[in-house]
């Protein structure tokens, strides 16, 4: 699974950290870091986190691998 957090939008509400703490972490009170390509088994957690984000800053990949169509 692939995700990206728009950290310009992120205001450090940490809702994602409560819901998927293996994927999202806080450094200090507000600085968010995360695993951009978490295991697929975390999908439900990550979807919960994305839905809960008060500023809707979490983007989840909508394609499966075959449709990405990379040459490499």
């Amino acid at each position, binding site marked *: 699974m692939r995700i990206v957090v728009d950290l310009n939008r992120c205001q450090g509400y940490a809702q994602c950290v*409560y819901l998927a*703490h293996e994927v999202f972490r806080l450094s200090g009170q507000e600085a968010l870091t995360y695993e951009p390509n978490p295991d697929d088994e975390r999908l439900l957690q990550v979807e*919960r986190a994305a*839905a*809960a984000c008060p*500023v809707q800053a979490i983007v989840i990949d909508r394609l499966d691998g075959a449709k990405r169509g990379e040459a490499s």
Partner: protein
Amino acid sequence: MVEETPWQQALRYANRANPYPFYEELRKTPVARQPDGTYVVSTYREIVTLLHDPRVSSDPRKCPAPAAAQAEGAVEAEAEPISEAVVSLEPNIITQDPPEHDRDRRMMTPHFVGPPRSPHLISDLEPEIRRIVAGLLDDMRGKTRIDAVDDFAYPLPVTVICKVLGVPLEDESRFHRWIETALDALDFGPEAASEEMQNRLAGGRRAVAEFGQFAADLLDRYARQPGPGMLSAMVNEDGPEGHMSKGVLASNALLLIFAGHETTVNLIAHSVLTLLRHPDALEKLRRRPELIVPGVEELLRFESSVQFWHTRSAVEDIDIAGTTIPKGAPIFLAYGSANRDPERFTDPDELDLERRDNQHLGFSQGIHFCFGAPLARLEVQIAVGEFVRRVRNPRLVEDPPPYRHNQIFRGPRHVLVDIDGIRD
């Protein structure tokens, strides 16, 4: 008699079940001055702007009694509502500004919701919540009619919040009565002046005082003999930022006991009600249980548990939406209206469990973003998800159902549902 403003009409008890037509009227003036000098903000963009504006205070102590109100001889009863009784307690995080707000919230966070110190606190509660929900649904076996409020929405949050905080569940009937009394006494609308509301007000103030004493006694007990839960931990632990005074801690305890279940009860009750009113959505959720995650966000938007908030005021003149909110004026932010603002949400009066870009204000935004949001989400996702999965053929008995009096914490008093049974 002077014609009532859309806001005053929205606040009338007769309109509690459906305030939305009045909100629609209200939004034509995004920032609307009321006869008592209060400024009601009803549009999404303006509310978000003010939630991030450091010239807005959340501390009612900083808001002088609205001079305009007296000048224009507006409703006198407004001068001393039940919220004054809450103010007479020590401040809590919802009525504080930075830096005190930020510090106290930092001190409370690790004990309640977790990060950064203990991020798994909430998810650890999931098995317990599932067990409680399963028990409540099991108890409905053999019944043909249930009350989705008393039999389902109420018992879950109250049990969970008592466990998290360390409040003895056997005291539930006492504080439940205090909360009900206080809530029924609070009125911001034209009916506040009625004799009945005036009588309720005195009872409400007494209830808040007794509730405060209850919290203080509980903290004393935990100071002598530590026990389980957040309150004991906070009384007895000294964090890196020091110690919260007993008065402030008691006030926050009150806030958490109250907010920790009252709003969740209303959200669960409204969710059941709303789904029963939208059979297509209910059926969709039954077929695709994973939709409960975005679905709860939509239900938060659709019937917001906190319809507005009333303790903010302008610390400086604020120019917004063609209006100047003068220094000192009280500001009411009408979340329930913003969440139905067509400028922000496409077809806002439609229920869409898969709504995209659903950046609702059901938990507010900014530094006062709902402290208990992660717990509320988990409880409601499990409760509503399981209700939909297990209850056979639920039918609404009465529509609209009777509503409770309170305008801020808007919710049905009962939601009677006829059912054909309970699945395993």
